[in-house]
């Protein structure tokens, strides 16, 4: 006997992601999902974003890592509410993990939650976690072929940050090629050339995020 089913396999993740979106809509919270390879500069970018965005918003951070507390401790020193989410080997964060972790925050006292996803260019892209925006980081030393090799990450992100841009002269990194490939995967992607060390290009990124946040949350 054949039974017709037609059910989405990742439905549980989508349902959970939508539930988080509803909660954040009610609580007036904006969520940023930061993704990229290990060593791309996710934590450094988040630290810089906190320093700028905290002038306007109450920020909280969820630090995703396979193991350890190193990143969470950095953020904690900045006097920002932070919870470390250890995936214990898993390659990505799922919506359910975010949902469970929200109880550790006072959501009435938060405007923006920044999530640092697991360092990985593959799996995190496949799981919505209730975010309003996806920021993909690609650092210059990783090479200019990564957008081509990991298309899903860059075709589902609204923002692409080319990080460590101050090192461009040391690497054969063709940023024009990266830009044209990224636009063919994702015509609406916003690309920013940033150095988290020199802070070059950071203002433009902060302004773009600020505009996106202000469109959603009412202060």
């Amino acid at each position, binding site marked *: *006997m*054949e*039974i*017709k*089913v*037609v*059910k*989405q*396999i*990742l*439905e*549980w993740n989508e349902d959970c992601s939508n539930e988080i979106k509803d909660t954040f809509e009610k609580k007036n919270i904006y969520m940023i999902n930061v993704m990229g390879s290990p060593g791309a500069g996710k934590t450094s970018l988040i630290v810089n974003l906190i320093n700028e965005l905290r002038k306007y918003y109450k920020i909280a951070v969820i630090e995703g890592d396979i193991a350890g507390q190193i990143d969470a401790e950095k953020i904690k020193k900045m006097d920002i509410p932070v919870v470390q989410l250890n995936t214990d080997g*898993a*390659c*990505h964060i*799922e919506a359910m993990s975010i949902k469970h972790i929200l109880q550790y925050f006072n959501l009435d006292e938060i405007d923006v939650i920044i999530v640092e996803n697991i360092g990985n260019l*593959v*799996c995190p*892209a*496949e799981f919505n976690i209730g975010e309003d925006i996806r920021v993909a980081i690609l650092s210059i030393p990783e090479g200019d072929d990564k957008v*081509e090799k990991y*298309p*899903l990450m860059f*075709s589902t992100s609204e923002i692409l940050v080319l990080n460590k841009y101050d090192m461009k002269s040391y690497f054969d990194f063709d940023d024009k090629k990266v830009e044209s490939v990224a*636009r*063919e*995967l*994702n*015509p609406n992607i916003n690309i920013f050339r940033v150095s988290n060390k020199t802070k070059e290009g950071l203002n433009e990124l902060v302004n773009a995020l600020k505009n996106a946040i202000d469109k959603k949350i009412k202060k």
Partner: protein
Amino acid sequence: MHELSITEGIIKIVESEAKKHHFNKVNSIKLVVGELSGVFPQLIQEYFNIASRGTIAEGAELIIRRVEARMKCNECGNESIIERHRLRCKNCGSLNVRITAGKEFYVDSLEVD
């Protein structure tokens, strides 16, 4: 690397159908997997064999239908296959296109006794 959690998703669907339709054995499960879904079909069966042990889905064969990625141009109306994730119209070169197929990832039907 998360094929295991995907196969758990498939098993959950089978178990919820079993509650509704009261079958005892699942012979095969038809899956539809789009090229843009990010899922690697070759591995799913192997993970499924492990994850389904002791469940009603144990022993079932996965029959996977791949769906090619397609797009339609909003400018000239041309429809074509998407190759290597490139969203550029092959007729007029516009980037103003929409994806019409390829993101599918669902259980289509079950063959049961």
